[in-house]
């Protein structure tokens, strides 16, 4: 408390002259007009765009291509900010983030940051179709054909037991920050399973590969777009069908995930002052196959995100030229 008083004292003394009305969070030098668009074509003279990087490689692929174009075609500087999904929205409030390039639903955040706080705005779909669900390796479906119906999962719970699952079946989830209703689903569908967090996309992929190679049972949370589906076969388990609004209360969800139209979110400030950078972000839209190609290069072909983006840009001029601001 003493410290706080001290800091506060120093600050009030030092800054009271500067602004008497108090400081709002947007008054931040670090987050000041980040993309002051000017007509200059010289590299990085156009301004800086801060793009959030969420923790899966598909997201990174989209961000890499947009960054590449911003830097090399429009002369912006791009600052990539590695963050989880929800903190990325907070980052728009603090001025640390201008763009979220692949947003998965998040209706609650849209309500809070777009409708109520008016800090963020939608910038349209990015063309990717998102699927979230529970998957098992293909060999399991051949051996236990009825496993793809959720009603039979309890029958097979013993197969999925691990040292971490408390004597129940293990449902392997990814990063705790990913969009997931799995704990509620397990509870509300009365499944004899425990959700165990692997911690990351890479850990899920590793588990899927091991389960396929070593024929180990595995039930896991996974999603599309995802390059891994080009390498190994995973089969989706059918949960009770999704109907509009069945997932309104996150604690009472008992239905499948909705089909996602992945979209872009930008900060209000960026929408107002982002100029050509904002236009490019708004126009950006590509297919799951496009994303998977770039993600595959990043993950499996040892390319940096920037190199993979360059390769895609050089191979698909007609696609990206359509996004360029007129």
């Amino acid at each position, binding site marked *: 408390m003493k410290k706080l008083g001290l800091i506060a004292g120093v600050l009030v003394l030092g800054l009271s002259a500067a602004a008497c009305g*108090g400081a709002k*969070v947007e008054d931040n030098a670090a987050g000041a007009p980040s993309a002051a668009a000017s007509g200059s074509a010289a590299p990085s003279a156009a301004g800086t765009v801060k793009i959030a990087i969420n923790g899966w490689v598909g997201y990174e692929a989209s961000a890499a291509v947009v960054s590449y174009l911003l830097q090399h075609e429009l002369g912006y500087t791009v600052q990539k900010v590695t963050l989880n999904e929800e903190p990325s929205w907070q980052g728009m409030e603090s001025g640390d983030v201008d763009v979220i390039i692949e947003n998965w639903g998040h209706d609650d955040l849209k309500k809070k940051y777009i409708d109520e706080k008016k800090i963020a705005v939608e910038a349209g779909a990015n063309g990717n179709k998102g699927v979230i669900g529970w998957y098992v390796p293909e060999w399991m479906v051949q051996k236990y054909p009825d496993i793809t119906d959720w009603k039979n999962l309890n029958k097979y719970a013993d197969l999925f037991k691990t040292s*971490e699952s408390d004597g129940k079946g293990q449902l392997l989830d990814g990063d705790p920050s990913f969009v997931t209703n799995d704990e509620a689903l397990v509870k509300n569908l009365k499944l004899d399973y425990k959700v165990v967090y692997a911690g990351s996309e890479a850990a899920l992929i590793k588990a899927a590969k091991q389960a396929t190679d070593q024929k180990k049972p595995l039930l896991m949370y996974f999603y599309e777009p995802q390059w891994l589906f080009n390498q190994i076969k995973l089969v989706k388990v059918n949960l009770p069908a999704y109907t509009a609004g069945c997932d309104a209360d996150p604690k009472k969800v008992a239905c499948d995930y909705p089909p996602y139209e992945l979209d872009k979110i930008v900060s209000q400030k960026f929408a107002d002052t982002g100029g050509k950078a904002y236009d490019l972000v708004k126009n950006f839209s590509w297919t799951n196959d496009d994303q998977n190609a770039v993600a595959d290069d990043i993950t499996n072909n040892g390319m940096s995100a920037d190199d993979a983006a360059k390769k895609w840009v050089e191979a698909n001029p007609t696609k990206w030229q359509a996004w360029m601001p007129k």
Partner: protein
Amino acid sequence: MVSAPVQMAPPVPAAPRGRRLARWAPPVAGVVAVVVLYLAFKDTATLPHDDDARLFHHLNDVRDWVDENRNSSPIFLFVLNYIRLFVADLYTALQAALVALGWPGLIGLTAGLGWLAGGWRIALVSVAGFGAIGVLGKWDASVETLALTLSSVALSLVIGIPIGVWAGRSARVRRIVTPVLDVMQIMPTFSYLSPIVLLFLIGPASATIATMIYAIPPAIRITALAIQRVSPTAVEASESLGATRWQTLRKVRLPMALNTIMLGVNQTIAAALSMVPLVALIAAPGLGVDLLQALARVNVGAALVPGIAIVLIAIVLDRITRAAARPRARARAVRWGGFALLTVVGLALTPALAQEFPEQWEIQIVRPINDVVDWIEANWYGFTGFLNDAVAYGLLNPLQNTLTSAPWWLVTLAVLAFAWWLSGPRAGVVAAACLIAIAALSLWEHGMETLTIVLVASVITIAVGLALGVGAARSRRFAAVLRPFLDAAQTMPSFSYLLPAVALFGNGRFTAIMASLIYAVPVVARLVEDGLREVPQTVVEAARSAGSTERQLLWKVQLPMARSSLLLAANQGIVMTLAMVVIGALVGAGALGYDVVAGIAQQEDYGKGLAAGVALVLLGIMLDRITQGADGRRSPHKKRNA
């Protein structure tokens, strides 16, 4: 900074038989009673976890209120937001200044500082260290990390030194400050991220503040110690000559304490550097981002490089500040002349050389490391899997089942009794109160799960640390081989250890245990070694001449005499293990650590995360009191390491 005083063990009284029986009887009776009560009341009065607890909703409401009033409440408008702006500006200014120097300029300046502090040797270390960072290809991220470290160290010193001076001069202030610092040092670093984010949002500002909280205790502690140690005759002389209090402080106390205060600076920097990677979780730039990304991709090589870069920064800053704490040797003109020369040469090279660190000088080490890891993964799978399962099924699961199926009052009673027996009534009451508070936070079950992992990890850590420490104390050669490994392991950022553990053991609790083993063993081993070495040679000689075998010497003489060091080692080992086990949530170790991570990442889990942070602090205090009290009760002259 560990200064365990040499202590003679009290002579073992030749107690009569009846007395001796009484000494082991109460603990045995206690254990029997606990077992009987457990069997009788198993599965009653358990506190199963409820995600929907009312407290969590209340905390969510608090969060919502803060979110809505961030731009209207006077506390935010006039205090918190200004703090945030000020700290953000400080970071931005420092970062811009370091970037403006250019890489040759920064290396030149550092070399100059090294020369100023300790001569050409330190200057050379500085050039080599920072040059190596460039060669590793991590220059830009390292500069950001350096800026973040320096801004939080600057804040720590500006705030910490005055408090330290105050505490050094007033016993009453010291009594208030010491327990607060104790708690600050026990708190797992993870636990205060979410309250800070609530107050200051994410970004470099809150990252700097979080780092400061972790780094400030040594600055205060060591300053207070330094001021206390200033010779009272000098102060009296100054006062009798008519100096005012301010003059005495400025001209006598501070200059005389300066060298010790520099050691405080040194410790503050070390603490800041170990926290800096973790704050990447709340959008701080720098090497931590690379580490987090490597973790997300399970890429060991990619994690090792930023880890080494942080070690290099730590070594350079450590050597400079350590040298600065020693008395000066050269003439003033020579020292400042050399400083100016080196800095100017560096700055002059900046425009001449490229702006970016030249890419052709960089070397790639990621791939070879990953090849090794892949090979181990592919070939040792059976062994690592067996180890994981053995620990999980043999130790973790049974212990966790016992703790969660026992009534909460029985666990609390058992802890109360154990702490009382080991450390006295006060420790017992504090420990029991902490447990009850965890129950009140609606986090009993998760608390027990975390406790399980910490207990198992601590036992393994202390066993390994003890073995290494004893080995090092008995063989100079072994100590010489071990030392560089321990040094490196101690400076690496704690969560770079998760990576090798994840690669070898997959995700789960055992991985967290392995990581905490790497993290805490060096400290334990070092304390054990120092303690054993401090046993007076004469005593050892006497025991030898009395015909003791080496084994008897170790068990009957050396270990008992080094008891206070051993207890300190156990205490430090347990506290560090807790910190690491919590971070282990990033790789699926679950429990309270997971609640904190989820609280940062998911809106509806915010309240649970906040409560879990508090529960972790309570768990830390509990474990610390139980073990630290043991030290305190039996040796009245205990000294906590700074």
